[in-house]
């Protein structure tokens, strides 16, 4: 628990730590979407419009989930 106490002193509150973890997860997820979208456009450039739309929607959904965690961290 020593490490956690030290971390808390640096970051200020455990809620903000949770928000940072959520952003980490969102970054991973959206990175995967971006990479698979880029690969698909490289394989089939004619479908780039559909792929772009699907990428944006999926990224917004994942970001929505991460923002749940951030909002909960902010209000407490």
């Amino acid at each position, binding site marked *: 628990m020593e490490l956690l106490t030290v971390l808390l002193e640096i970051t200020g509150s455990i809620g903000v730590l949770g928000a940072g973890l959520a952003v980490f997860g969102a970054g991973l997820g959206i990175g995967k979407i971006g990479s698979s979208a880029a690969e698909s456009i490289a394989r089939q450039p004619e479908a780039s419009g559909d792929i772009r*739309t699907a990428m*944006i*929607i999926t990224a*917004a*959904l994942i*970001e*929505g*989930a991460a*923002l*749940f965690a*951030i*909002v909960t961290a902010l209000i407490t």
Partner: protein
Amino acid sequence: MRQINNQILNWLKCLGVFLIIALAIPQFASAQPGHEGHNHPPGQHHNHNHGKKANKNANEKTLADYNDAHAAAESEGFNPTPTIMHHIADANEFHVYKNFSIPLPVILWDRMNGKFITGLSSQFKEGKDGYKLYHGAIVPMKGNSAKKAGINMSGVNLGKNTFWDFSITKNVFTIMLAALIMLFVFLTVAKKYKQRVGKAPKGIQSFFEPLITFVRDEIAVPNIGKAKADKFLPYLMTVFFFIWIINMLGLIPFFPGSANVTGNIAVTAILAIFTLLVVNLSGNVNYWKHIFWMPDVPVPVKIFLMPIELIGVLTKPFALMIRLFANITAGHIIVLSLVSLIFIFSNNGLSAGGGVGGAAIAVPFVLFISVIELLVAFLQAFIFTILSAVFIGAAVEEAHH
């Protein structure tokens, strides 16, 4: 043809520079902490009622919070949290410069005395009819609410449950302004379409035609189907342009912009409730069958899926609400934090060299984030609309095997 392209390019460059200047420079003016507005004797800072914090109600912000913020501000330099929260939240006036604010009408229903109290917010500065403008918001004065025993400073208590606030606040004003803008623009466009039947579009009509066909051909028709999309287009277009205009108005740092409307969760909640109503009131038998008794799966799975699908009916609009609220609020908080960096570096105005250094670091970041916020303003409107279209499409879909 090349000349026209060059002209357009030049016009876009000028617009870009103007936007960047208009967005970046006034951010500093609007972020000033209004210390001159609080006329309280400095000796009162050290009366912290620590005992009262134990029985603090969730609704009732005691004055100890403001006291602590002020004490921290005076001892350690600039504390950005109250300034940022003040700029994110709703207020009964548009705060322009240290003591100068643009007032807005105040309409209250006093529950204790059972009467309406109206006026302009500038009349409430010293208190009127038992209510006072404190830090930009209307609060009841000392004698008004006998039940709420909040901490009193300058005769003001912060218990908020004694009145209902129907005032025209910043958010209400901006919503009305967006509605007026939309009415003006779309009635003009519709009139032009009737006048110029069969001719090529010109002027404002040609500016909005790609946007309107974008909403119809990329958002509504692929998700709802060509036959039924027209029925839902009014709702989808209204939501799309409303959210876009309101987000853009919130990015302008001065009056009539500068109000963080979608950062008020009540506004996004109402938009999500509209989507909930439109989706569920237009659901056909196939839609409800999929929720309560999903076809083509074994019976135990059907029973297991029913509560999950029922909760899903509520969580999908809930996610729409949270997504819009948090994206726009987070963007505003980032911009305000970067601008507060200047005040932190300059030690709240004491160090000019620090101020210049802070500005040199903060201004490029503020520009960068503001441009991203322009994209996010459009993107969040687009996402809200396209997810609403997807839910509506699921609700009106015919069964197919």
